[in-house]
């Protein structure tokens, strides 16, 4: 029986429903929060349903099964444009969105990160701005999200047991004077909320078969369906958002599983398609009233695209590690996440263990590489430990999602082009992270150190950012667009700045807060 078999159904001309585009961290959470208030919701998800039983313990096969592989193009000086020109992002096209793939790290943003412009000052070549909300505004929603997602080391939930990769990181952290633990993870360390505890499979990126890792696929979405107020329509690829003469959103057009165009009316439209598809949809919804794209009077739709400063450090040792056993992200060091410009850059970064299986290690260790050095690294695969560096990157007006003038998708819609140039601050931070990561492993006796460039981005943020003033961004502090009162941005596209931390917890917290606000606006008749 499919999860959608006994769900509520809403007519396509029912203009009282809230239409949510996307079923991941933002869309899936928003859907459950609204449905729980008794608000009728239709979720349109481009991907198909893949349940836990469908997940594969096979990196390439799972990649083909779950990833968003529709064509995209790239430009700019970032290395991905060369290594993976048509795969700028490693995100999911499946019910549950990228919460199927994520590693589970659930760190709150730090208070100062909501005030990037005030705290860091203007940075040349960056488009820094303070968020229109502060840490204290979001703190109660962080608490709700942590409880909902079952984040370890919150709500009296014990930390996960650390795997071998963690053991190596911990030893090095101690040598460097860092503090390190198994992190705040939305992965059950105990049976909780009807979900099993983690069995340490090591396939977090391929979908969690036990359901120990929180994903909207088997938490928020079935819960929303159970309220009788939510209809999930998989394989529904939204093409445009439509509006009336007053400039209010009236519904969406989408392509169903057969490729036939459908139209769903709506009282409110919320977009949560991840930070490439969300602006693409607004741009593809241009009309005579909104010639530059919907909700784009500021010209900021698609701009300030962020993907975090990332990089990885892998190190080999005389003794075996078998880093692939157990949770992918098994240990976290936050000591470098502080803002300390004496290091030569603003903002900070997290250090988080990461492992890849042999197939993906070959693909991502040094894309394009060959020869004895590369082969020598893989010869030591089972003696390897690894970490990912993830830090704040600078919003730049020129780092942006645009419509490709030539390339079209299967429905004839222009595909997204992703343009990104690393800011000097990103480069300085990455260099610092590489050095610290290497020092950490060298202190434990590393034999060889490998600096691995960014993978296709799983953290995509900021392309429809929040701003206090309408001319600086696309939406307000609740994700409501400045231009169209009944149009909301409900994913990481809202982020004004990227902060150093993994984005999912903040996306979920913002969605809970947004749902409360939408419920209030609907009651007041304001939307």
């Amino acid at each position, binding site marked *: 029986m499919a999860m959608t078999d006994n769900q509520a159904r809403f007519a396509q001309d029912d203009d009282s429903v809230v239409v949510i585009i996307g079923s991941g961290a933002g869309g899936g959470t928003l859907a459950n929060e609204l449905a729980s208030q008794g608000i009728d919701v239709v979720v349109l998800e481009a991907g198909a349903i893949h349940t836990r039983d469908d997940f594969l313990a096979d990196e390439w096969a799972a990649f083909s099964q779950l990833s968003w592989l529709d064509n995209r193009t790239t430009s700019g000086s970032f290395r991905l444009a060369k290594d993976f020109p048509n795969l700028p992002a490693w995100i999911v096209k499946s019910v549950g969105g990228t919460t199927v793939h994520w590693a589970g790290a659930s760190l709150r943003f730090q208070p100062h990160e909501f005030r990037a412009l005030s705290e860091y000052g203007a940075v040349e070549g960056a488009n820094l701005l303070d968020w229109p909300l502060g840490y204290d505004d979001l703190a109660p929603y962080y608490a709700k999200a942590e409880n909902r997602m079952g984040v370890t080391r919150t709500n009296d939930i*014990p930390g996960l047991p650390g795997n071998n990769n963690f053991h*190596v990181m911990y030893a090095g952290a101690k040598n460097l004077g860092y503090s390190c633990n198994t992190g705040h993870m939305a992965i059950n360390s105990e049976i909780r909320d009807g979900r099993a505890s983690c069995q*340490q499979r090591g396939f977090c990126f391929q979908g969690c078969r036990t359901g120990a890792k929180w994903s909207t696929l088997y938490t928020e979405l079935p819960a929303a369906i159970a309220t009788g107020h939510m209809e999930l329509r998989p394989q529904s690829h939204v093409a445009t958002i439509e509006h009336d003469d007053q400039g209010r959103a009236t519904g969406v057009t989408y392509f169903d599983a057969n490729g036939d165009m459908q139209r769903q009316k709506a009282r409110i439209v919320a977009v949560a398609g991840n930070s490439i598809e969300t602006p693409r949809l607004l741009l593809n919804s241009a009309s005579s009233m909104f010639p530059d794209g919907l909700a784009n009077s500021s010209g900021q739709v698609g701009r300030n695209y962020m993907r975090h400063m990332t990089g990885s450090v892998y190190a080999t040792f005389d003794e075996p590690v078998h880093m692939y*056993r157990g949770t992918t992200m098994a240990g976290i060091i936050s000591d470098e996440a502080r803002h300390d410009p004496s290091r030569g850059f603003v903002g900070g970064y997290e250090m988080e263990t990461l492992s890849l299986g*042999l197939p993906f290690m070959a693909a991502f260790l040094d894309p394009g590489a060959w020869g004895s050095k590369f082969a020598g690294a893989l010869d030591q695969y089972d003696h390897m430990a690894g970490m990912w560096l993830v830090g704040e990157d600078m919003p730049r007006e020129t780092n942006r999602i645009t419509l490709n003038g030539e390339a079209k998708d299967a429905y004839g819609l222009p595909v997204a082009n992703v343009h990104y140039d690393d800011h000097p601050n990103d480069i300085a931070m990455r260099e610092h992270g590489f050095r610290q990561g290497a020092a950490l492993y060298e202190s434990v006796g590393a034999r060889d150190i490998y600096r691995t460039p960014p993978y296709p981005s799983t953290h995509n943020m900021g392309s429809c950012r929040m701003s206090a003033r309408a001319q600086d961004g696309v939406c307000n502090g609740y994700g409501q667009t400045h231009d169209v009162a009944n149009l909301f941005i409900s994913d990481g596209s809202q982020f004004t700045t990227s902060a150093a931390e993994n984005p999912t917890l903040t996306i979920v917290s913002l969605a809970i807060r947004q749902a409360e606000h939408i419920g209030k606006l609907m009651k007041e008749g304001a939307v």
Partner: protein
Amino acid sequence: MLSRPLSRRVFLKASGGALAGTLAFASGPIALLAPSRSWAMPLDTLSSRQGEVLLEITKHLFPHPGLEDAVYAFVVKDLDKAAGVEQTHELIQGGIASLDSDASGDWLALDKQEQFQRIEALEGTPFFEKIRATAVVSLYNNPLAFTHFGYQGEEGDVGYLYNGFSDLTWLPDPPQPADGYMPGKAS
């Protein structure tokens, strides 16, 4: 892939050639898995000699001392599959022909260092890139490679919680609560 000694049937099945060999490392992990020391891989499109050249090129690109040719043969198998498309077939055929003609007709007859230099000089060409890009996936995405390099692949599906996820003994165990707790063991 690993099979009984080459039979006539194997040759008849494929319209192309075949790769065959004997496992070099009798006591290696792969030999322990294999039913026989002989192996054969039929090819649909490429000739046996083309297969042998591609296998040697792959070994130059990704030199792993001690890795069986039987594993490199997976790359040849995937290139053979790709050669089912005429354009790719021509690319591979042309690349090999050009290597041969620059080596008095037989690139395979050159010594290893000569061979390597000729391959190195091709970096960036579509022929080189086709082999490299295929090899970097095929060579490391099969159960024999997993065994060789020490990756447990699908064995992880049941979880390592009671089976080695934290069996590292050469460093001290991190203290709790920095390290976490086995399920049900939190105080």
